[in-house]
């Protein structure tokens, strides 16, 4: 309710093309030489003092990657990327190695405060509005490394492991070795294979059996350096009967050249476990003419390995010049459930090709897909999804709803679902619509005093409500603001 007002104020307080997170900060950086070869892979591995098996794992991925070609089936167009013209490792010098909050460079903390990411546990505990504010543990990743992880001690009390993956390699090698690459194998696809070779850091989460994670976990990704690819790797394991809600946020400075972000996220749920994974993706989208912006080529996959397990993806995609992303669920355990809730907004010259895969392998597995795409400006917005029930997945159920909204005459909205049933007890329902905001709705709102832009933001917020409701409260408010900002200048 209040958010609508905040949205409106926010829109008013901004210039049309201003990206709130577009600033850049100078830190002393530790960088690998430009380009990619086996030595660079070894350099990254050595920097992180990795065990030999992991170095070998990376090298194997690299060797495979050089034989592969970039996929071209998505509806996105961009000049060929020169993978030798990128830096594959960049770390703030002061942040090398995991630290406690007290040891973190105060400038870094200020930097994150500017981004709206509070890292001081005390501040959070005190809270601006006292006890009302929920506590969220944060892992802050800048360029290639994790800067700090908060609330570690408290989480450890309940047995939850939440730390940079580079740290987990040393502290929990058996878990990393067992699960890394078990959902997204090194051979999976071009960008995932590249990530396997050069991944820098990311978050590692392990929730022990029967534990309900006492607070929300969150990773905040930031690309700061120029010409630097960001290749983070996230691995979340929910052991039998456990539950965790995980949030991911991302921003990058405003730059004229494009930057590459190729992350891999792997989720594993065992029997009766549940992971709720929410993303608000706000990478720099490029300017009004389509110059600059992040190439967001991300592989996210969850494996419902145990019976009655559940994985739920919620994403709000407003940023990036190009988004290529299909958070998916492999429903392996009987009675497991996968969910995908998505809002994808494109404006300017953004290109979005996003969706999900629900692969039904176990019996009586269910999935639900709700996708809301909004295209404005000169953008192209594609939903691409796959629902497959295998022969033995008897009783599989899926419901899919994809709605697209077009604002203006120069954008495109596209829907490409693949629906594959391989047994007669599978029951699939798919519906998709494309429309524009109706003139009657706009007039009705304006008759009641809302301006055209306010009315549009309100109607769009209504259009995406089903998905917003899936987000944790704080994120939902943030997302609502983002939606309004993303659509700025789209109303003629």
């Amino acid at each position, binding site marked *: 309710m209040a958010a609508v007002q905040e949205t409106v104020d926010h829109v008013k307080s901004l210039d049309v093309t201003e990206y709130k997170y577009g600033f850049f900060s100078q830190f002393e950086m530790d960088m690998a030489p430009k380009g990619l070869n086996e030595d660079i892979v070894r350099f990254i591995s050595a920097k992180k003092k990795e065990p030999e098996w992991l170095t070998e794992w990376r090298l194997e991925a690299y060797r495979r990657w050089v034989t592969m070609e970039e996929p071209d089936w998505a509806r996105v167009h961009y000049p060929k990327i020169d993978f030798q013209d990128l830096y594959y490792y960049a770390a703030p010098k002061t942040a090398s190695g995991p630290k406690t909050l007290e040891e973190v460079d105060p400038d870094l903390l200020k930097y994150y405060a500017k981004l709206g990411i509070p890292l001081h546990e005390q501040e959070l505990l005190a809270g601006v509005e006292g006890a009302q504010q929920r506590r969220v543990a944060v892992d802050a990743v800048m360029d290639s490394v994790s800067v700090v992880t908060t609330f570690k001690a408290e989480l450890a009390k309940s047995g939850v492991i939440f730390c940079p993956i580079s740290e987990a390699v040393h502290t929990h090698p058996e878990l990393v070795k067992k699960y890394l690459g078990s959902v997204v194998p090194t051979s999976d696809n071009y960008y995932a294979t590249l990530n396997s070779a050069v991944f820098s850091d990311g978050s590692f989460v392990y929730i022990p059996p029967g534990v309900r994670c006492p607070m929300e976990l969150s990773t905040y990704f930031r690309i700061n350096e120029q010409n630097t690819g960001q290749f983070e790797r996230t691995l979340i394991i929910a052991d039998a009967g456990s539950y965790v809600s995980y949030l991911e946020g991302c921003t990058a400075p405003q730059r004229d050249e494009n930057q590459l972000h190729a992350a891999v996220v792997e989720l594993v749920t065992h029997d009766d476990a549940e992971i709720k994974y929410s993303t608000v993706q706000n990478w720099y989208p490029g300017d009004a003419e389509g110059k600059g912006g992040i190439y967001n080529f991300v592989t996210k996959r969850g494996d419902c390995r145990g019976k009655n397990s559940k994985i739920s993806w919620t994403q709000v995609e407003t940023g990036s010049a190009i988004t290529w992303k299909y958070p998916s669920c492999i429903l392996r355990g009987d009675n497991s459930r996968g969910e995908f809730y998505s809002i994808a907004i494109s404006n300017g010259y953004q290109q979005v090709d996003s969706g999900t895969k629900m692969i039904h392998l176990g019996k009586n597995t269910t999935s639900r897909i709700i996708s809301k795409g909004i295209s404005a400006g000169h953008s192209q917005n594609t939903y691409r999804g796959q629902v497959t029930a295998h022969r033995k997945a008897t009783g599989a159920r899926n419901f899919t709803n994809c709605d697209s909204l077009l604002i203006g*005459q120069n954008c495109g909205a*596209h829907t*490409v679902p693949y*629906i594959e049933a391989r047994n007669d007890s599978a029951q699939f329902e798919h*519906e998709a619509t*494309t429309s524009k905001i109706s003139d009657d709705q706009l007039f009705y709102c304006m008759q009641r005093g809302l301006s055209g832009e306010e009315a549009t933001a309100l109607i769009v917020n209504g259009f995406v409500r089903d998905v917003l409701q899936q987000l944790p409260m704080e994120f939902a408010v943030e997302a609502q603001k983002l939606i309004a900002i993303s659509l700025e200048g789209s109303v003629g």
Partner: protein
Amino acid sequence: MVARIVSTRTDAEVSLADTFGSAKATLPGNAVVKEMRETAFGAFAAHGLPHRRIEAWHYTDLRSMMREALPLAPLPDVRALEAVRVELAAAILPAGPRLLIVDGTYVPTLSDALPEGATVRSLADVLAEGRADLIDKLAAAKFAVGDSIVALNAALMQDGVVIEVAPGAVIAEPIHIVYATAAQTPVARFFRSLVVVGAGAKILVTESSLGAGGRVGQTFGALIFDVADRAEVGHTCMMTKTEPGSLRLDTFIAELGADVTFSSFALVHGEGLMRRQLFLRCVGDNTKAALNGVSLLKGRDHADTTLDVEHIGLGCEGRETFRYILDDSATGVFQGRIRVAPGAQKTDGKMMSRALLLSDDVVMNNKPELEIFADDVACGHGATCGGLNEDQLFYMQARGISRAEAESLLLEAFASELADNIGHEGLTAAFRAEVADWLAARTVKG
């Protein structure tokens, strides 16, 4: 998977090249047409048979499914034609002139004359004569760009019919294009037909087949409609009576002017590998187009319906409704794309596919697509698949109806719901009879 596969030509591709090499001198057409054939075959050879990495053929991997290419069908001889004549006499078709195409060749002696306002000629004659406007329409260059099967048909088309309907002409009875087979050995047939409908004319064209007499064959057909403003056009296609092991690939193309009313209905229940690909362009404003189809599949049948509906004019309405019943180990494929071009405002496009799955072994693949470049539109698609409704079955059984009969009733209702869209009493009855036959032949499982 991402690594590029360097492909070698399959046996079928090699023998198609041989077929073209030896037949091209004798295939009909003037110099322009011969040039067209060369270009078309070049396009085919460049891509080869379509496979699953070709998006439009994702679920019908012809490269692996088409093991061999059969020799081109010879001209039917007198004895064969006599057999067809007998068969035709016994065929039950609603009233209306019949045009016989035997093994890809139009046979005027077995065909009827068309009523006033419509004319028919053989494709071979039209290709030889080379009238530029007709050749242009036959080439249909704006359609199915990059589809190697359409290119293959253009390279090897043997014959077909060219029907022209004068502006304002109203042809009361349906014109039946009837396909028959005569060759005693397995052969390949390539035909292409064109129907040019003048402004304000009214016509109904049907396609059906006589029994193949147990002969396996490969059929590559194409039917092109060119419809001028305000015309009212109906079309039905009964893709039936193909044999297990046979291959039938039909391409249907229609370009519609303004204020046209167009409707097409197809029943697919032959056997073997069948694919209908339909390309529809609504070029003029305020045109209404409806495409409907029912596929009844069993055994190891594989039937693919792939639509590409493009809206270019303002305020056009598109309705595509397709139903599948799948039994045994059959595979159904539905791919439907609605495209709305930039500026095609007020387009109203709806597509729906529903499949009933009756056996553990069936596969149903659905890919409905929307590709929208105009904002003031109302477009949507739906796709469902699942088994028969157990509550309904139980309800009927509780009223004393056997399970088998209950299933039949539900299936018949499901298949027949679209019959009203045929718009011709005799053809509707023929369709219902086919559905009843299919259901009667079906064995109900516990």
